[in-house]
């Protein structure tokens, strides 16, 4: 039964969105069996995110380094930035930003105060180049930044930069700064370049190399580049063994840094990046400001970390549990007293608050609304997309709105009922609006209300044939819906491997979902389980890949056409 649900999950409003994924599926592992096999290929290239960049710099150079830059915008596909970002490159203005940032980081890391801790050696003469010391620095930092040892030619290129710079400026450290800048703007740092090698255990097949595995695990669990131990496990091959991998995973999940990884995942899945650009009309929501916006995001993340990581609670409780944290600005929005001397205090909403879990926190309610009103449709679409894995198609272009009346009076329900009675709209609005209408006791900022334009708000709704009432009814419904944990499993897997899931993944996802139930829906166990599975490291050979010899050969087959697929 679970299987059927997964298969139909993207069949929404009569449009089979999954067809897109089918049409562009690249060929699997078979191409390695053809004659003239490349020794190594690069199956994927993904730009690191802003938080990954920041965390890596803090890990490598210490938390004192200031990072002041505008990062390139990210792109969400199928609900996840982790999927959309795989398509992105670096624009000219983005390059400018990364370049200026790299110069600033080099200046800080190799400035007079910090150079003694940053550089593992002393130059023979600080006014001249010193290849021995420069090499030591470049190799050691290069490995942390590229997440693998540098090739000799990569090292030599930076050595050349360092020594020419030192000679020209008469300053060893000025030269070293240039070499470091060159590592920091290199595509090998800014992009995760995944590499696969021939698998010694399976003739003609590829496997991800040790460093790529280490990097995948590290960004997945810590949202940062691999540390020394992980790089060592890659170097000595331990990461390829079951025991070696398990050991690393256990170490990483029991580290406090695991919280960074979980935060990053939920930032992405819950689309909390939207707070960067959220605006509200101050005439309508005077309490909204940047502090409220930041606090709302933090509240949800704190709730999740406490519940799922620290207390190891059942994932599904997020929809019904009212245990959370508040600070002073949020207390004003929720209209509750705040008596703590700390910045944040734990708080449990009473039943009478009408609230039910994360769907009724200010973050979800304000993010998926308009600047001056709530939006049942937007909220409904996001409930389906984020928690049930159902994508809603774009509205049809030429809709007949003639029946849709102006509704400055009464409640929004009336206006939406018009949509539901309209042929072109009904297919989707019948599906998207009920979960949103159930949340209508909360305005566009998430404040409780029971009337709109003087009329009392009806929050009864029906979804998949089940009648329910209000936010608490919706929370219960989601808690017990088997698609909710199944969708989480899919999102976590897609997030970790950085690509859309395909038909081929369904059996694996279904197994993982069953296993998730068996471990009581505990998130850390699920992430460990996924990261330890061979599927997590499966190599997907991209189209148009050519031999990894020193002289590139043009691809023999035309690349698959990925455009022109209409949905």
């Amino acid at each position, binding site marked *: 039964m679970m299987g059927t649900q997964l298969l139909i999950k993207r069949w929404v409003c009569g449009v089979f969105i999954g067809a897109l994924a089918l049409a562009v599926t690249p060929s699997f592992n078979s191409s390695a069996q053809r004659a003239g096999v490349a020794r190594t290929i690069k199956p994927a290239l993904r730009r690191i995110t802003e938080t990954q960049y920041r965390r890596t710099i803090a890990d490598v150079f210490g938390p004192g380094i200031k990072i002041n830059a505008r990062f390139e915008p990210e792109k969400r596909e199928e609900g996840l930035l982790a999927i959309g970002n795989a398509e992105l490159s670096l624009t000219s203005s983005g390059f400018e930003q990364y370049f200026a940032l790299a110069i600033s980081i080099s200046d800080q890391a190799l400035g007079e105060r910090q150079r003694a801790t940053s550089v593992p050696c002393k130059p023979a003469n600080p006014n001249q180049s010193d290849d021995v010391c420069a090499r030591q620095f470049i190799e050691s930092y290069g490995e942390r930044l590229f997440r693998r040892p540098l090739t000799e030619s990569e090292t030599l290129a930076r050595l050349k*930069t360092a020594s020419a710079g030192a000679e020209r400026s008469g300053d060893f450290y000025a030269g070293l700064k240039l070499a470091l800048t060159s590592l920091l703007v290199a595509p090998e740092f800014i992009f995760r370049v995944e590499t696969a090698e021939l698998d010694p255990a399976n003739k003609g097949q590829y496997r991800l190399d040790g460093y790529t595995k280490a990097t995948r695990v590290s960004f997945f669990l810590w949202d940062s580049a691999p540390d020394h131990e992980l790089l060592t496990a890659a170097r000595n091959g331990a990461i390829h063994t079951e025991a070696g991998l398990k050991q690393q995973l256990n170490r990483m999940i029991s580290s406090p840094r695991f919280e960074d990884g979980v935060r990053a995942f939920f930032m992405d899945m819950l689309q909390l990046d939207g707070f960067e650009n959220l605006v509200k009309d*101050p*005439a*309508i929501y005077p309490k909204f400001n940047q502090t409220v916006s930041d606090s709302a995001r933090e509240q949800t993340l704190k709730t999740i970390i406490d519940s799922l990581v620290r207390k190891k609670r059942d994932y599904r409780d997020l929809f019904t549990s009212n245990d959370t944290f508040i600070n002073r600005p949020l207390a004003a929005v929720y209209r509750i007293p705040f008596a703590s001397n700390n910045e944040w205090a734990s708080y449990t909403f009473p039943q009478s608050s009408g609230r039910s879990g994360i769907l009724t926190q200010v973050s979800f309610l304000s993010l998926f609304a308009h600047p001056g009103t709530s939006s049942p449709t937007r909220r409904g679409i996001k409930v389906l997309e984020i928690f049930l894995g159902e994508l809603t198609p774009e509205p049809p272009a030429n809709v007949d709105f003639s029946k849709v009346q*102006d509704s400055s009076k009464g409640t929004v329900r009336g206006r939406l009922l018009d949509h539901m009675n309209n042929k072109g709209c009904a297919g989707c609005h019948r599906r998207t609006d009920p979960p949103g209408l159930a949340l209508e006791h909360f305005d566009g900022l998430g404040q409780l209300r029971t009337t709109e334009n003087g009329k009392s708000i009806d929050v009864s709704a029906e979804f998949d044939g089940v009648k329910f009432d209000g936010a608490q009814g919706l929370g219960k419904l989601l808690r017990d819906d088997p698609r909710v944990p199944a969708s989480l499993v899919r999102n976590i897997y897609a997030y970790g491997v950085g690509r859309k899931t395909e038909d081929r993944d369904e059996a694996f996802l279904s197994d993982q979902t069953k296993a998730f139930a068996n471990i009581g829906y505990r998130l850390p166990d699920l992430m460990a389980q996924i990261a330890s599975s061979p599927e997590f490291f499966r190599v997907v050979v991209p189209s148009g890949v050519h031999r990894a010899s020193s002289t590139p050969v043009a691809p023999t087959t035309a690349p698959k056409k990925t455009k022109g697929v209409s949905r």
Partner: protein
Amino acid sequence: MSLPIDRRSFLRGMLNGAAVCVGLPFLDRFLNGNGTAFADGARLPVRFGAYFWGLGLTDTPTGGTRWVPSKTGRDYELMPELESLKPVKDKVSVFSGFRAIGDGRPNLVHWSGHASILSGVAPAATGRFDGPSFDTRIADAIGTSTRFKVIDIDASMSRQPVSYSTRTGNTFATPETTPLALYTRLFGAGFQDPNSDDWKPDPSIMLRQSVLSAIKDQRQALMAGVGKADQIKLDQYFTSLRDMENQLAIQLQKPEKCAACAPPAAPKETPRSASVDAVRANTRAMARLLAMGLACNQTRVFNFVHTSGTSETYIAGQSKIYHQITHDEPIDAKLGYQPETSKLASIVMEALGDFLVELDAIKEGEGTLLDNSLIMAFSDTGYAKIHSIENIPMFLAGRAGGRHKAGQHIHSTGESVTRVSLTAMQLVGAPVGEFGSGTMKTARPITEVIA
């Protein structure tokens, strides 16, 4: 400090596309009567900009047009929604009746219209173009001799920053979204005042060049074993790297003096707000900075988004956003159009008027910066209530250094929008003879507006 240049080497420099800004006392002798070109035909640099606003203008099926003039040619009348263009009417051509043609592809709401105008191809999916946007071709042709090849701006202050400029169809440019950010980019670190007398090449720039060459050395090794899609991404990366190299090289050249260049003071940080007034003010502030950036020869090409396709702007205190109003507001039976929507469209056009006036305020030669520019302004839809991609409002503003026979209304009965795009490319001298695909493929610019 004066430069030993004679007229011949000066003009050669211009024709080679070196950094050109015009030293006025020197130049006056060579300008023709209207200040747009040299007496012997060489021109002042022409700038190009794409200006986008969301949600079209009002032109209802019931005949209640609020923007399409009834007369064509020079003496077209200013319709209510175009009222704000009055101060620059003679420098603006209005194009009506052009449409995006899908050839069977669906009309993707708030996407197909401008994707067609910019890429020449009806897009297959929202969020992507099926080809590069044409501003990149113009930038490649006229943008390589300034510090920035192109400047991207989004003044809308709502949701994700938006740009519709793309080389790959997937990665879109990263726009500046606040006056302060734009100021910092144009006039912050790295800006060299062209009128400063004590210019010296900055030795740190030379050192920085070596940073980039170390990366280029590794290109071939990096490309090996990479799939097709990732090759495209890496190509874009290396294009961006080359733009950076070009920027450094230009910073090592002594900039030519620019009489019109008066670097502004840094603006204050502005609070985020997406009310129509706030977005209009933001547009104006950013237009002023951009105009000075153009006058100071920091860039020759820009993309400016006033509001995105699904504009989130609102009238302060009113609960509905503009986008929602276009769909929900009934047509007033007596007026024949949606009064509230039309009012909002007029405010949006006021921002375009402000924008053009800012460019027109800067004197260059005997004309203005606007005279030496071409701005193509357009929207994503025609009549927004039904997401129409017919009769998408399009304008060409500025005389393009005299090449644009501005101030006309050109009406078409359903020809492709790509004709206007092609015209824009040719007016600013991009070497493009044909644009678009399928029914939208065209080799016919609109000759009526080309001098």
